[in-house]
């Protein structure tokens, strides 16, 4: 099953449309700023349309995760094919795209957030052409990460994100932008070179068989087929890497619970944890967020952080279930530390943006705790929390942007009594803040509840400790509302205007989603249900296999 437009699959379209847009933007003369803005809006808008098509055509029953047959909208084209020489096997890399219940949620989120971020970028006045060109390139990188099913391709997209992000923070950011941009770049590159090494180690540990028509067969299938006319190759295919039967005996990562597998798992983990970011790998985040322009903060919090958590679920979990089970407690612990630490630090902030940044650390901790539980509710909650956090934090950063555009300050203590001055603003901000603190009836509550519910089954004590966060979050969130809206209005803010149409256009749909999913979360939960069930079973299966091995 697949949707094609002009003979090209929908996933290729949704991934590379922004690059097409980038080329067109580059062709426009730089004086035509509005044309450039509309061009970017048009292409991200098309992306949203495609995302809706994907959403409606998505088959809820198919699980995906570790089988190519279970993936949807699959596109597969041979990309690199070097014939075998005596001392080096055939190199066969595929351009392989596909989505399952895990990635479809991220695809929707990316399309939506990118679109909103373009609207929010309307006020950018400096080098508009360069800004939107880089923005669109960034968009392609992010989307590609979520649809790639070949590790090599995944890595390419993963790295493509870095450079535009560096420039978007570095050129259009705040006063300390140079520092923030290079810190972001170095941190994430450090993580990704470790990931690269783990990827190469996986490559040399996994073989599959290829037939003359170029179709890949797992070792088990090939044995059934009697090896007729098949050639053995190494592969970057993610699903092949998830099948223990494909690992070459005596290769670096063969077997279960070996120290090399743990090392490879940790290498991948560091790469992903930096992106999430988990404490203690988080220090790039507050700097990047504070210095980045509003729209880029939205992208960072809304999509980029999800790449880390997504990577864990897509790669670490199914490829290293043994290591995952071995380290699940440690992972949960880091999640809880992130939750509590992030909340405590957020409480101490007087800079609006920094506060949101630390609240992101705290909320992403929930995601990690949820997925470390390795059961269906926990992981469903985690993925749903990724989606909700994407929407809610995007709102929060947009809200900061609105006030910053008007006052050019982010000092929380400088505000007060804005409720009457900016009533519409107050309404939207209240929705976002209550969603962020997990008020029932708004989407954040459901995902946090699921995550904690799942986590409680696996890590009782840790989860009980983590619940402190809910109180802390309510504390700092409400305190912000109090400092901004209540009390007396300082003289200098008497002239502030309420949010305008453009700002409403980007905030209202997000607020609607937050409220809608808070009351009726099924549309999103149904998308990922089969996949999460399947992943949980897979991990359980691996867990019991390991236990049997130990006995």
């Amino acid at each position: 099953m697949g949707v094609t437009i002009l003979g090209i699959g929908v996933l290729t379209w949704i991934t590379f449309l922004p690059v097409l847009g980038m080329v067109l933007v580059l062709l426009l003369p730089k004086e035509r700023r509005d044309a450039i803005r509309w061009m970017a809006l048009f292409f991200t808008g098309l992306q949203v349309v495609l995302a809706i098509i994907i959403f409606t055509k998505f088959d809820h029953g198919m699980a995906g995760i570790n089988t190519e047959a279970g993936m949807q909208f699959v596109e597969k084209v041979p990309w690199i094919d070097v014939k075998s020489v005596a001392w080096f096997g055939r190199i066969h890399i595929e351009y392989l795209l596909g989505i399952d219940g895990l990635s479809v949620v991220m695809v929707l989120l990316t399309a939506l957030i990118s679109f909103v971020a373009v609207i929010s970028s309307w006020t950018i006045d400096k080098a508009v052409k360069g800004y939107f060109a880089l923005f669109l390139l960034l968009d392609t990188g992010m989307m590609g990460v979520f649809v790639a099913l070949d590790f090599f391709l995944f890595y390419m997209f993963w790295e493509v994100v870095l450079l535009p992000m560096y420039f978007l923070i570095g050129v259009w950011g705040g006063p300390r932008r140079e520092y923030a941009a290079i810190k972001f770049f170095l941190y994430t590159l450090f993580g990704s070179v470790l990931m690269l090494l783990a990827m190469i180690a996986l490559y040399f540990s996994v073989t599959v068989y290829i037939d003359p028509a170029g179709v890949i067969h797992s070792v088990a299938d090939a044995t059934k087929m009697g090896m007729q006319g098949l050639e053995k190759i190494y592969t970057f295919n993610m699903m092949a890497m998830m099948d223990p039967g494909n690992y070459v005996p005596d290769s670096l990562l063969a077997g279960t619970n070996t120290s090399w597998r743990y090392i490879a798992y940790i290498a991948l983990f560091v790469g992903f944890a930096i992106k999430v970011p988990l404490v203690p790998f988080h220090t790039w985040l507050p700097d990047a967020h504070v210095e980045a322009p509003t729209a880029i903060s939205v992208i960072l919090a809304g999509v980029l952080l999800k790449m880390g958590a997504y990577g864990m679920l897509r790669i670490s979990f199914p490829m290293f279930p043994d290591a995952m089970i071995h380290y699940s407690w440690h992972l949960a612990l880091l999640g809880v530390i992130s939750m509590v630490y992030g909340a405590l630090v957020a409480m101490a902030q007087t800079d609006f943006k920094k506060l949101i940044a630390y609240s992101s650390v705290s909320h992403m901790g929930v995601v990690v705790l949820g997925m470390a539980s390795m059961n269906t509710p926990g992981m469903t909650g985690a993925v749903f929390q990724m989606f909700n956090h994407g929407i809610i934090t995007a709102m929060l950063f947009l809200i900061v942007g609105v006030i910053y555009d008007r006052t050019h300050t982010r000092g929380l203590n400088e505000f007060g009594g804005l409720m009457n001055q900016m009533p519409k603003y107050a309404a939207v901000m209240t929705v976002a803040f209550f969603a962020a603190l997990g008020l029932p009836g708004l989407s954040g509550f459901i995902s946090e509840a699921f995550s904690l519910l799942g986590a409680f089954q696996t890590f009782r004590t840790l989860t009980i400790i983590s619940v402190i966060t809910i109180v802390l979050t309510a504390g700092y969130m409400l305190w912000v509302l109090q400092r901004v809206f209540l009390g007396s209005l300082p003289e200098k803010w008497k002239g502030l205007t309420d949010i305008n149409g453009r700002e409403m256009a980007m905030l209202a749909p997000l607020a609607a989603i937050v409220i809608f999913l808070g009351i009726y979360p099924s549309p999103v939960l149904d998308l990922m249900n089969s996949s999460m069930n399947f992943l949980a079973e897979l991990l359980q299966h691996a867990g019991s296999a390991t236990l049997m091995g130990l006995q």
Partner: protein
Amino acid sequence: MAEQILQDLQLFYPELALTATFLVAILADLIFRRTSVVVSGIVMIGFVVTAVLVLGQSDLHASIFSNMIAVDPFAHFFKLVIIISAILIVVFSLGSAELNSPNRKLGEYYALLAALTLGMMLMAGASNLLMMYLAIELSSISSYILSGYTKEAPDSSEASLKYVIYGALSSGLMLYGISIIYGLTGSLDIYTINQVLAEGDISGVALLIAGVLTLAGFGYKISAVPFHFWTPDVYEGAPITITAFLSVASKAGGFALMIRFFKVTFIDSSVVTLPEGAWATFEGFEWYHIIAAMSVLTMTLGNLVAIWQNNLKRLLAYSSIAHAGYMLMGVVVLNNQGLAAILIYFVVYLFMNLGAFYVVMLVANKTGSEDIEDYKGLGARAPFITVALAVFFISLTGLPPTAGFIGKLYLFAALLNSGWVWLAVVGALNSVISLYYYVRVFRNMYLRPADQPGPPLVFGKLQTAIVLVLLIPTILLGLYFTPLVQLAQASVKIFGTP
């Protein structure tokens, strides 16, 4: 005998063409003293003819002049790299403001370029210690003169002098090493030396000393730590065209020589139990440990010191030291996969490094400066070439989707596949360090405004075209690297080895 020599000469056409080019260029320089265009034209034609002749040698497997020189796919590959960079360097030189100052006669410059190229080509094929030594000397002496060619600039003369002194020292050491090897084995022919070693009654310690001394000569050519001291000063002081040439072609020659020497001399061809493509060394000659250490030192020092550089030429000098370190990793693994990775890296390195040098030269032509501080605000003044420079730097860092990533990928793959995990980790961390100093240049180009706003820099169509010639492969080979890998895999065959 004479008949044999005549027959062998047919396999020596590229080198003969270069020799002829050199001689004709000298003559032409005597006749047309005022117009160096004639000489440059002659050298250009000579190089192109040589390139065509090299291309014609694609699948040969022979040894000529009584085992003096090997003509094999491995040599063929390096000759290609050398001659392509030589052609590009002539093109660069024609557009260099630094060289083409009114009072300078450039005839000798182009003639010496031909001699230098000849020396490097001989390095690619030399299979006799004496021949190796002569090839190194030929290329060294030409490069001493060329690096001091802008003699009114004091740092150019200083560079030349330093180069001579270090060069003399390391070739002295190398010669000493060669003489010990000759004393031990009674031969200068590396195939015979291999046979003598296979018989086994040679003192390991003596041979190790000889090997290390010989390594000094190679290490000097590829500017590996601790034989790198000349590199930054020479690279900074020499005309930028020569710097670019030395950083690519001279390294290629050095690597070719070193790999051939170690592989042919120390490989125990009686061992057949190894996996295919792996090399067995004689017991007691674990020289790859020395190379591993050298590799780590070279890349780490190159990268760490590059961070502190403010002159872009000097920065690129240290970066090219670091790249030699990366490539040395491929030697350590002792198999064809590592060798193929080095070859892949060389092709990639040819485009990205020459590209970076060319852009630096273009900017220096206009602004007269190679200082990183003077790159402030350049992004707005010269959008196209700064984007090109950014791509070359991204590629040098090794980020996808550029060719540099493919080079690193294959090196790391070779290391991990043969269990050198720690070395791969060191290499990977080094590329993170390298990002920092490359990004410093981006920062100045795009993030910081110029102290005094200058007019836009306008470049000609030809210059843009040359940048594109280097830029397109740098990106394209990152997205589709099948031909690159095929070429490298076909070029690992060294004459006289299994």
